[in-house]
Each structure stands twice: as C-alpha cells, then as structure tokens.
C-alpha cells in the first residue's frame, strides 16, 4: 500500500496533471503548426505539457515529503452558498431580480452559522428595494425586475 506523506500535495499534483492532460488532449483537435507559424494547438500543448511535468513533481513530493492533510471540507456553507448563486442565475431572467434576490438571500443564509427567519426576510426585502432603486431605477441596468418581463 502506498503511504501518503502529504495528501494535500498529492491531490494538488493530481489536479494539475489532470488539467494539463485535458488541455494537451483537447488541443490535439486543432492545427499544430510549427515554431515559426504556430497553430492554435502549439502554445496550449506547450503549457499543458509543462503543467503535467510540474504537477507530477508535486505528486512525487506528496508521496515523498511529509506534509499536511488537505483542509477539511465544510459542505454546508459550500453547497448552500453555491446553490444560492446558481439559483440566483437560474431565476434572474425567468422570475426577475426581486424573486432572485429572495432566493439568493434565503439559500446562502441557510449556509451561515445562524438562521433567523425574520432577519433573513427583512434583509432580502431591504436588498431587493435597494437594488431596484440603485441598479434598475438609478443606473438603468438592463435587468428584468419582475416575473416574465423578459
């Protein structure tokens, strides 16, 4: 069994190798050209290969040199905050900014350490009103405010 000395470096290295590999692999679909006339594949292949090599060094270091474990993941804030953002994007053009703001504020607040029902709704209302006045009324940004206005 492989003994990991530093899981953190090991995973970081794997990530780099994966990204570099993906770049080199995807780039092969484009013309390569030559050093004097570089095609669209030339530079990404160069950089990707370099990333694979350096990433491999990081992997090796993760196996050979003592280090730390990856920081622990706290899934609650991670998932709820990102879900809030994605839902904000999803509702924005369909249901308008006002509803999107409530979705974002409620979801992301659930990711916080304390959730006060009234406080959250009040915050959402204030932000909705403020955003309407500043961004739509004041700055005239082209953002749909109400459902189906797009």
């Amino acid at each position, binding site marked *: 069994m492989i003994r990991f000395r530093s899981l*953190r*470096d090991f*995973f*970081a*290295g794997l*990530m*780099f190798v994966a*990204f*570099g590999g993906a*770049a080199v692999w*995807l780039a092969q679909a*484009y*013309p390569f050209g*030559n*050093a*004097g*006339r*570089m*095609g*669209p594949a030339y*530079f*990404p292949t160069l*950089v*990707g290969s*370099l*990333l694979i090599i*350096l*990433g491999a*060094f*990081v992997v090796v*270091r993760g196996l050979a040199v003592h280090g730390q474990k*990856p*920081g622990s993941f*706290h899934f609650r*804030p*991670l998932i709820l*905050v*990102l879900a*809030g*953002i*994605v839902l*904000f*994007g999803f509702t*924005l*053009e369909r249901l308008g*900014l006002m509803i999107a*703001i409530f979705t*974002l*504020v409620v979801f*992301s*607040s659930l990711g*916080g*350490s304390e959730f006060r029902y009234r*406080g*959250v709704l009040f*915050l*959402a209302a204030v932000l909705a009103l403020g955003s309407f006045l500043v*961004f739509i009324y004041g700055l005239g*940004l082209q*953002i749909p405010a109400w459902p189906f206005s797009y």
Partner: protein
Amino acid sequence: MELLGNIGLGLGVALTLVNLVYCFVGVLVGTLVGVLPGLGPLATMAMLLPLTFNLSPVTALIMLAGIYYGAQYGGSTTAILVNLPGESSSVVTCLDGYQMARQGRAGPALAVAALGSFFAGTFATLVIAAFAPPLAEVALNFGPAAYFSLMVLGLVSAVVLAAGSLLKAFCMILLGILLGLIGTDVNSGMARFTFNISALSDGIGFVIVAMGVFGFTEVILNLELKEKREILTKKVKNLWLTKSEFKAAAPAVVRGTLLGCMLGILPGGGALLSSFAAYSLEKKISKNRAQFGKGAIEGVAAPEAANNAGAQTSFIPLLTLGIPSNPVMALMIGAMMIHNIQPGPQIVINQPQLFWGMIASMWIGNLMLVIFNLPLIGMWVRLLSVPYRLLFPSILLFCGIGIYSLSSNTFDIYIAALFGLLGYIFVKLECEPAPLMLGFILGPMLEEYLRRAMLLSRGDPTIFLTNSISAGMLIASAILLVIVIVPTGRKKREDVFTE
C-alpha cells in the same frame, strides 16, 4: 519644468467636481472594505465595475484606484482595534498595533498609521510622476521578444515574492494561462476549449474568475470560521503622538516608504509584500528591537507606510508596460479595456490627461483619507459590529448583479459559481489563487508575443537570447529562481512571511 506642467495638467483633471466626487466615493468605499475583514478590494472593485460603465474612463479609473489605496488605510484601523487584519496587507500591523491599543495607545497607533500612509502616498505619487514617463519611453522600443521575456520575468518574480510553495505557484500560473486561452484564438479564428458553448467563444471574463475565486470563495471560507470579534470599544482619544513617539516613528516611516516604493514596482510586488518586508527590516535594524510585538510604534509605522507606498507604485508597471503586477492591477487592465483604453506605454504619451489626472487624484485621495479618516474612526468601529450574517448575502448579491451586468448573460453567473468551487478546492489544497489570476490575464498576451517573436525569427528560439533586452530579462528571471532555490535564499524567503 515639464514635470510641474504635467502635474498642473493632472490637477486640472483631478480637481473637476465629478472627479473629486468619484475619488471621494472610491476612497470612502475603499476604507469601508478595508475596515471590514473578509471583503477585499479586488472583489469590491469587481462589484463596482458596473457603476463605472457610464463614467468617462479617467473618472472610472480614479474611483477604482481610490478603492485600492483606500483599503490600505481602512485595513489598519481593524488591525489596530480588533486584532484582525481588515486587509491582508495589514496582517503585520496587528502585531504591534493591537498591543498599542491594549495599552491604551490606540490613538497614536491610528494616527501614525494614517500619517505614515499619507507621507508614503505623497512620496509614491511623486515617484510615479518622475519615473513612469521615462520608463514608458523605454518600453516603446520593446519588441515582441522583449515583451515576452518581460512577462516571464513578471510571472517568475510574482511567484518568488509570494508566500507558499514555489512549485505549486508555478503550476497555478500555468493553469491560469490555460484557462486564459479559452475562447477564440485571435490568429486563426478557431474556438479553443469552448466545448461548443457559444458563451465561451469570447473567453471567460477576468472579472468573473476574480468574483468566483476572491468573492465567493472568501464568503464560503468565512462561514466556516466562528465569528469572534473583540473590539476595543473604549473611546479612542488623544490622537496626538508624543515627541518621543514621533522621533521613533519618523525614520521608520521613511524606511517603510522607500522599501514599499521599490517593492511595489516589482512585478508580483505590491502592498502585501511591502508590509511584510518593512516589518522584518524594522525588526532587524531598530534600536527598539526588544519592544517589537509588545507595542512598538515603529512596528506600526513602517508596514503601514510601506503597504500604501507599494499599493501606489504597483501602478507603474501597469501604466508604463501594460503589465499587471498583481491581481488588483489586472482588474484595472480589465476596466481600461472596458473603456477601450489599450494599456501600455502609449497611455502616458497619447493620453496625458488620463495618466496625469489619475496620478494627481491619487494624491488628492490620500489627502482626503488622512483628513476624513481620523475623525470618522468612531463610525468605522461601529460598522465592525454589523454581523456577518447580514453582510455576506449582500456581498453575494452585489457580486451576482456585477457579473450579470457585464454582458447580461446568466451563464457567466454559473461560471463564477464554478470558480467559487474551484477556488475553495485550491485553498483546501494550499494552492494560492493570486498566481492563477496573473497567469489568466497574461496568458493570451504571452502567447501573442511568443507567436510574433517566433514569426519574426522564422522559428528560431534563440531570438530571446540574441535580443539584448529580452536576454537581460531572462537572465534576471534565472537569477531570481536560483536565489530562492538555494537553501539560504529559500530560508530568507520563508523568514519574511513567518511573523
């Protein structure tokens, strides 16, 4: 005196009512985000970018610059009163600043931070005014090979001067370059790495990546920490320094300023590095060495002067070469491009009112900061009591609206969320996101200059060594690398960041 004429021209631009108002707004907002821990100038500038769409370019840049150096002022207030760095560049200010506050000397600590910053800001403004134009003249003669090597030097020194693992930082740069290549290749018109998604054909916007990695990731990380803030609410009174305090602080301010000016110019430098370096320098040469960490005024004066000086002189590579030395400057490039200004040496020559107006506004902004900040400290302290549970949904919302307003495309919001997730993984694996951002912004330029240089040399890579400017840059990069790889150099580098 040409310089005086130029400064006069700049003051003429900066003193118009519109520019004064936006300069004020910029420094005020900057101080605000500086005071608040967990909200950096980068995310703030990105959030406020849509506000600048309707402004003239010079006004927009004046406001954005104000946010950056304003944040350096605000960060020190939190560091001194709460023992939390409001800004990463104020980390070292906590060490002695908070100790001073505990001893009831919060007033002098805040005063020396503000006055030191003002002195540094004034001096750095003069440095920019004196050195940027001749540097721009030199830069006009750079060919593609020289530009390529210059960027290599920039990226190498950015890595060398930053904290953390060298190897991983290089990987992050390369990853950033690859991400920057997503979109249509300008030379062949071919879409690269777009997965047939039309929204990706113009590439991923810099602001979107920055919001994800610096805005969303920060919020998520902050939510993992339990909130505990111990604010020294005792009335801050007696802002004046005693004679002996002034005597101790003045030379430290001067040393910090000079060091900050030099480190700010270096690619990869800026406020953060300057403050760390100034503190360790002061700790080595001060007569008052034993007091460091126990409330030495030099330990506040030097890093505060240095971070402000460094924040300002980091505009020099941006304005003269068009090369960002840190992610904040990369965002300034983004802002310039939105306003159809091509960053580079042509700015100084072709758009003097923009260049000099910005410089003059920096000095005026610094003046505003020192005048308004000390009386407003009570207000900033009260602001710190706003709980994070109210703050972070607002930050997320402003980021979201900021992203959408860039190109009215909700797909950008999803991309930013993806980068929020990636940024979170990076932090957990201890990979610094700043080099990624630099690679991201420089990637397309690197490719372009490499292609042009190799086209001119008909595929002969020795052009990078036969061109003397290019060779010089590459040799400098090599020397830098060797210095940090040999054991003594490596240890020095680690020392600077372990306070």
